[in-house]
């Protein structure tokens, strides 16, 4: 049970943005800007970073839902999502993305440990200022979302199909504030 009274039957972050839309709208706007707006990183790559950080923070709801979004966006290459969660260093992804995931991991653990060497390594593999900025802010933002979702003990579905539906929604319509009719449809 959640630590506070949020709408019943609604999972994770969704229950929290419905509980308090005045903060929720800015959180969704942040997710949309970070994960969907123009960036040298693809939407799939950014969802993968969100999944990776959420998995390091052991937030099952965020890791499950963003993994589903990443699988949806990677399409035929969707298997690499689970390979990255298992060990990103041996996964079939570019060296640039590996170097950025290493930066994301340092941000998650202790942002002060993001060293010049890690940044140089990412640049050597083609990362730009924008790639580095977006990586740091995505990693930092999921340290927020993960703590918010777990700190209030929100509902975390265990059924994989529930996440698949969320992933498809996130991959198509993106991050928009929930409406009542949409929630009734989800609860069914």
């Amino acid at each position, binding site marked *: 049970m959640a*630590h*506070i*009274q949020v709408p019943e039957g609604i999972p994770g972050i969704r229950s*929290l943005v419905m*509980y*308090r839309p*005045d*903060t929720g709208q*800015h*959180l969704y*706007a*942040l997710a949309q*800007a*970070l994960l969907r*707006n123009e960036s040298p990183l693809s939407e799939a790559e950014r969802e993968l970073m969100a999944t990776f950080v959420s998995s390091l*923070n*052991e*937030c099952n709801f965020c890791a499950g839902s963003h993994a589903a979004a990443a699988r949806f966006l990677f399409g035929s290459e969707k298997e690499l999502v689970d390979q990255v969660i298992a060990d990103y260093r041996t996964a079939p992804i570019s060296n640039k993305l590996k170097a950025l995931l290493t*930066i994301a991991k*340092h*941000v*998650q653990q202790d*942002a*002060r440990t*993001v060293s*010049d060497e890690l*940044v140089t390594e990412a640049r050597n593999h083609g990362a730009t*200022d924008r790639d*580095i*900025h977006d990586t*740091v*802010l995505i*990693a*930092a*933002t999921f*340290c*927020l*979302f*993960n*703590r*918010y*979702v*777990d*700190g*209030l*003990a929100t509902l975390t579905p265990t059924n994989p199909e529930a996440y698949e539906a969320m992933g498809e929604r996130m991959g198509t319509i993106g991050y928009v504030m929930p409406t009542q009719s949409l929630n009734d449809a989800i609860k069914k």
Partner: protein
Amino acid sequence: MPHIQLPEGLPGIRGPMAFSPETAKPLNELANALLQTDEGLSRAERELIATYVSSENDCFFCQTIHGAVASYYWGDENGEFVKAVKENYGLTAISAKLKALLAIAGSVQKGGKQVTPEQVQEARQQGATDKDIHDTVLIAAAFCMFNRYVDGLATWAPENPELYKFRATRIAESGYTADDHYMPK
């Protein structure tokens, strides 16, 4: 030196915000919604929670600027009160309710799952509402993001305490805005 090329002369989070206005907008709006209100928790209490979490994350810029804003609201002229809260809030004269909420914030800083039903129960017994608990968790979580954004890009932080005091007064007067108009002319 910052890890990426940021506009010069903008301290802390202000550099990356100028670099990325699209994300700066929701970040500033979130800060205002969470910190610039006295509904339930007061502005003074909210800034104190932000300062405490930033101190636990050892983020110099965030704990100094939010510490200065907290001092402004608490009438803590020399900053000794805020310093004492950061060192051991249990020994300060703050309310039992705020102590219980800072304990929750401290758990959130370590990880969301660290918050226990007992901590929530204790906060409720001291008069905390659902909204107080919600806002505490979200403020603490948000500063786990702000702190990482600021330190993960190795942004510049001024050392002069007077500058933070000046900026704190401007923040208290006009909130958190995308434009940085917090520097002395």
